[in-house]
């Protein structure tokens, strides 16, 4: 008997093979789509308005070392901010230079001590300081009028982020750092209100100085770190304060009366808590014109001020050091001591999580805490080969050569004057930050860059440093450094990457003819 219907004979092996080929194609497509999703993933914007991104924290434990990766090479000298700190020096320079010019003076004789001696020893610095005032800033003002509209939203963004910030110290450490006498939960602060009538005396948790009796430094460190994160800090570390990092003299705006009297390090500056937040990632990549440091510094400043209030409420002294309200010390080496990262060729600290995209603040205190260890995750070897920041730096401020001794420590010598002169030439939100944007470590937290980070951190041969550096240079090119300059200096106001859509002023604002958008 024959079957009237044709047999539907499926060859199972053939089906399996076709299925396998289809599976491979679909799986491959899936990998591409996974990659696209990972690249767009909001969690890769690490630390921006959240401290709970996926895989946020790098496991520092295995990279901990007993000594920081910077090298002591001579007798340490505390920095004299009156001449060594460019903002402080240029503040003094401006006043004395204008006055000296009116008096018909020239050269180092225009200045009072210590600037006079400093400029005599460093005439090239005086030349660059004068260039800034006489040439760069006037040109910037003209270019800003012609081309500045393009960066109007960036400027507004920077101003918005910088608009909120707590006050800085209102006096020297002995006056400002200690808790005010007022009623506190848990007991009375010294000199506070006495119990009234038949009110029972509460059990005290404080000693005679008003400080709470803390159980254990390890637990206190854990508490302080948790609070810092809750207050908005992306990264936090704790270290004993190395006196070498405290300025030799006080600077303006910190509540000191005599700025020419050496700064004595107060006893209660025993520990340093370092907090830090990143700049918003997309504007940061669009530096030098669209990014701003205000976004991160504003947040770090607020975190630091809140942490200061928290510590003071426990009865311990505390003092914040952060831009906007300035510093009494150098922050990067303290952050390195606290295990947040290592110093890069561009003199900026590089962290495993945020790369160079971090703006730190320090709180000095004496609340007893366990300290963190510094880390070594391969940055020194990487920076030796990489030089991406030096090659991309339009001002030539970042050295291509080896480390030199500065104030008793070996480090790459950044030319502060060239660096800040370029800052001052930029249109938009002020500043440069190209070295931060192009640093291979400054990458969003996705699988690709995390894998690269783990490879470099764990490769004892340093072969991966060279391979990844050459991939970085060929895969992630930036504009020609000369293009970053403003038009009157031969450039085109280029940015390292395109700005995010919400900072493109021309898409939102109607410009009247003649104002000119872009070069």
């Amino acid at each position: 008997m024959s079957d009237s219907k044709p047999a539907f004979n499926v060859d199972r092996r053939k089906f399996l093979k076709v299925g396998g080929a289809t599976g491979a194609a679909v799986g491959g497509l899936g990998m591409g789509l996974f990659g696209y999703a990972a690249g767009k993933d909001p969690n890769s914007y690490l630390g921006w308005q959240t401290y709970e991104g996926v895989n946020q924290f790098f496991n520092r434990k295995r990279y901990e070392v007993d000594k920081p990766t910077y090298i002591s090479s001579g007798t340490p000298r505390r920095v004299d901010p009156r001449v060594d700190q460019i903002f402080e020096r240029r503040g003094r320079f401006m006043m004395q230079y204008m006055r000296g010019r009116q008096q018909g003076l020239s050269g180092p004789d225009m200045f009072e001590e210590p600037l006079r001696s400093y400029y005599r020893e460093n005439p090239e610095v005086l030349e660059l300081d004068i260039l800034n005032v006489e040439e760069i800033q006037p040109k910037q003002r003209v270019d800003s009028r012609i081309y500045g509209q393009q960066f109007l939203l960036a400027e507004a963004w920077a101003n918005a982020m910088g608009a909120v910030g707590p006050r800085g110290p209102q006096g020297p450490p002995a006056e400002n750092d200690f808790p005010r006498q007022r009623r506190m939960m848990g007991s009375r602060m010294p000199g506070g209100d006495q119990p009234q009538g038949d009110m029972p005396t509460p059990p005290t948790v404080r000693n005679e100085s008003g400080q709470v009796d803390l159980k254990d430094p390890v637990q206190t460190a854990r508490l302080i770190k948790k609070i810092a994160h809750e207050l908005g800090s992306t990264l936090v570390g704790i270290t004993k304060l190395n006196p070498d990092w405290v300025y030799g003299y006080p600077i303006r705006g910190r509540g000191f009366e005599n700025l020419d009297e050496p700064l004595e390090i107060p006893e209660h500056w025993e520990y340093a808590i370092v907090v830090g937040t990143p700049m918003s990632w997309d504007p940061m990549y669009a530096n030098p014109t669209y990014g701003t440091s205000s976004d991160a510094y504003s947040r770090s400043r607020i975190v630091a001020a809140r942490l200061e209030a928290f510590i003071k409420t426990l009865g311990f002294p505390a003092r914040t050091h952060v831009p906007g309200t300035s510093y009494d010390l150098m922050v990067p080496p303290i952050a390195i001591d606290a295990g947040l990262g290592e110093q890069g060729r561009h003199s900026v600290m590089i962290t495993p999580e945020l790369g160079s995209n971090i703006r730190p603040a320090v709180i000095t205190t004496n609340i007893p805490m366990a300290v963190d260890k510094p880390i070594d995750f391969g940055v020194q070897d990487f920076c030796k080969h990489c030089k991406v920041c030096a090659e991309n730096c339009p001002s030539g401020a970042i050295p291509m050569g080896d480390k030199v001794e500065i104030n008793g420590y070996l480090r790459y010598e950044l030319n502060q004057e060239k660096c800040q002169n370029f800052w001052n030439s930029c249109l938009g939100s002020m500043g440069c930050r190209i070295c931060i944007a192009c640093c291979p470590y400054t990458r969003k937290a996705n699988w690709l860059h995390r894998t690269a980070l783990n490879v470099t951190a764990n490769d004892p041969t340093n072969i991966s440093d060279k391979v990844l550096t050459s991939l970085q240079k060929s895969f992630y090119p930036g504009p020609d450094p000369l293009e970053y300059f403003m038009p009157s200096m031969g450039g085109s106001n280029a940015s390292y990457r395109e700005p995010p859509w919400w900072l493109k002023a021309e898409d939102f604002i109607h410009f009247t003819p003649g104002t000119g958008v872009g070069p």
Partner: protein
Amino acid sequence: MSFFMSGFFWFLEGALFCIFILAVRAWAEDRSIPMPYWKWISLIVWVFFVGFTLAFIGTSFGEGEPAAAIRGGILFGVIAIISGVGLWRLLKIGNIPGEEEFATATEE
């Protein structure tokens, strides 16, 4: 969270990978190609490299780095093609000529 970042996506990828491996096994059996462990390892490494290349291209586009996507795609893609050709030749090592026809005739 995007579907492509979810655990379920990786479950599906794993299932597709298993089907692919079974298919390769059937393909090798049908052609009487011996598949010792080193061939499997070479094949799996190559598949992972191709997956890496595709994910690299996607990630670079996703994070707004088209130059990296194109340049990386070309570099890793060329490496994947060349190594794929090499792998193809490697896989055929040990093939007994005529066995394939014999196996097909027996099945029929």
